[in-house]
């Protein structure tokens, strides 16, 4: 591939190859203070669906070790998003070392808080806002649990902020670095936040999980205990590799479910959510 970029995010190395220079330059700038892997775990490729689409209405097809042949290409202006989607896709389809849960993770006092939910539950936004309040950012998309130790490994890729969350987080973190505004993507407007230097510096330090939250946005503030069996089933469905890990996945999940308290929280706005979360954390 013409243009190549490599990066290690937490314990996972990627190489991204691209027909175009722009997405690689953006990645290099945004991931400037991350280390490089020796041999990457996964390869991502950004290329035109047809040769002429390199130049005429250029559109980016996402490929790699693991790929979805029918996925729609993105316009070149969204090449950075394509790269991030490609890296996520490798994790979702190919990760076999860690139990992977769709969750954002932040750390305080050497313990991790996991927030699991579908897209739109606010897990990226909440993790970014908590990082502005002294929590260590460990990841906004995937929680990686080592089946051998039960510890959570950080995967602090760029934080993907969508629509209204862009302004909320820009106001909360006025000194942070952001990527370009990507307007009109499949998920609306997207802007990437660069995790702060401390998140990257500490990314090789795994921590034990201490609290598991299932946030829901758009309701009166409320919280409830989640029964163990419901936590178990929800997390199997929040994981893309639970079944593929076999007994190691079962052990890791059973340990998490049995030892870490879980709450569902409803929140009407992010200020309220942050208060609810920090109150629950203090009561641990």
């Amino acid at each position: 591939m013409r243009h190549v970029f490599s990066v290690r995010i937490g314990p996972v190395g990627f190489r991204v190859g691209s027909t175009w220079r722009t997405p690689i330059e953006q990645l290099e700038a945004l991931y400037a203070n991350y280390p490089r892997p020796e041999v990457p775990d996964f390869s991502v490729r950004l290329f035109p669906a047809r040769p002429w689409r390199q130049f005429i209405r250029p559109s980016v097809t996402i490929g790699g070790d693991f790929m979805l042949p029918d996925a729609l290409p993105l316009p070149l202006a969204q090449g950075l998003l394509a790269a991030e989607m490609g890296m996520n896709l490798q994790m979702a389809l190919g990760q076999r070392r860690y139990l992977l849960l769709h969750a954002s993770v932040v750390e305080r006092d050497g313990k991790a808080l996991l927030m699991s939910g579908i897209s739109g539950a606010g897990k990226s936004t909440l993790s970014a806002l908590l990082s502005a309040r002294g929590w260590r950012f460990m990841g906004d998309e995937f929680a990686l649990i080592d089946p051998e130790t039960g510890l959570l490994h950080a995967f602090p890729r760029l934080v993907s902020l969508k629509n209204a969350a862009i302004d909320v987080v820009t106001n909360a973190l006025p000194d942070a670095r952001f990527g370009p505004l990507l307007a009109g993507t499949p998920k609306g407007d997207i802007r990437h936040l660069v995790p702060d230097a401390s998140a990257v510096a500490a990314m090789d330090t795994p921590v034990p999980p201490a609290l598991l939250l299932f946030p829901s946005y758009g309701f009166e503030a409320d919280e409830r205990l989640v029964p163990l069996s419901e936590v178990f089933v929800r997390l199997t469905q929040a994981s893309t590799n639970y079944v593929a890990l076999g007994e190691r996945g079962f052990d890791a999940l059973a340990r998490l479910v049995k030892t870490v308290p879980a709450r569902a929280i409803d929140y009407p706005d992010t200020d309220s959510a942050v208060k609810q979360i920090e109150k629950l954390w203090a009561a641990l």
Partner: protein
Amino acid sequence: MGGVVSDGWLLARVLRTPGNALGLDAAGWTALIAIARAEQIIGTLASRLDGLKLPGDVARILDDARASAAQGQVAALWEVEMARRALAPLGEAVVLLKGSAFAAAGLRAGEGRSIGDLDILVPRARIDAVEAALLAAGWEWVKPNPYDDAYYRQWMHELPPLIHRDRDRMIDVHHTILPLTARITPDAVSLLASSVAVGPGVRMLAPNDVIVHAAAHLFADGDLAGGMRNLWDVHCLVDQFGTTGLDQRAAHHGLAKEVARSLRLAAALYGDGAKLTPGDHVYLRRLTARDSWGRPTRQVTRLGFYVRSHWLRMPPSMLAKHLWTKWRAKPD
């Protein structure tokens, strides 16, 4: 050897002589892993390299691949067991084909091998009873469109694929090893009669027939997709069982040429080499057409084999009808 070649030959040389990998630099390893993933043979590679002193990143990637393949085999063998349970009341043994047979019998060809669908061979006269028993045990039609369904039933060597409603796993029920449209008709009755037991209620083809099937699959039923893995199977089978009686057996099934070629290609890729024909070189060019990102290369060669595969499967008039129907189904 890092950086010198990065096409399918890189993979072949390491599979043949694992020690060859020790000279790879980071770029060489990266290419090797990408190519092995693209050929769906990374688990085999990982088990070949097990025990060697590897760079840390590589060791972790291959450990994961090994664990993943092992878990894949558990799931594949469970499908075998559930099919056995479903067919036991019929008094019909499950005769395994391809990957699940190698895993069930503990063959070298099965070590680290990825296994997809469950492929079984049943007597043609029993196919309706087998179909009914599988439907009763939770398998369902994938619900293809009526044209595909009729096509399968009339012309193919298998039932339309079934998927299990709870386990999301597919089973292909074959009554011979080549489509009825192919110009070659292997002796399916004899395949079943010569099958060997690998466990209670579970059988597989005799070793020579397994090699014949691999060759049939590679040359008469496909466009060489997955060919590197298929020939690795052949290489391991020959290594483990030898070739005594293979020529006669291949001739009996009408596949002498194909079997001879697959032996030469397997030897060229993974063994001690062979005296190759000019045609063999074209095959090898197609088989190893990957770049250091695992991308398919040599598009013209690939296209030639794709067209050829359809040609081999169907008489020309049927091919035209098939392509016409497929074309009409396109949206634009």
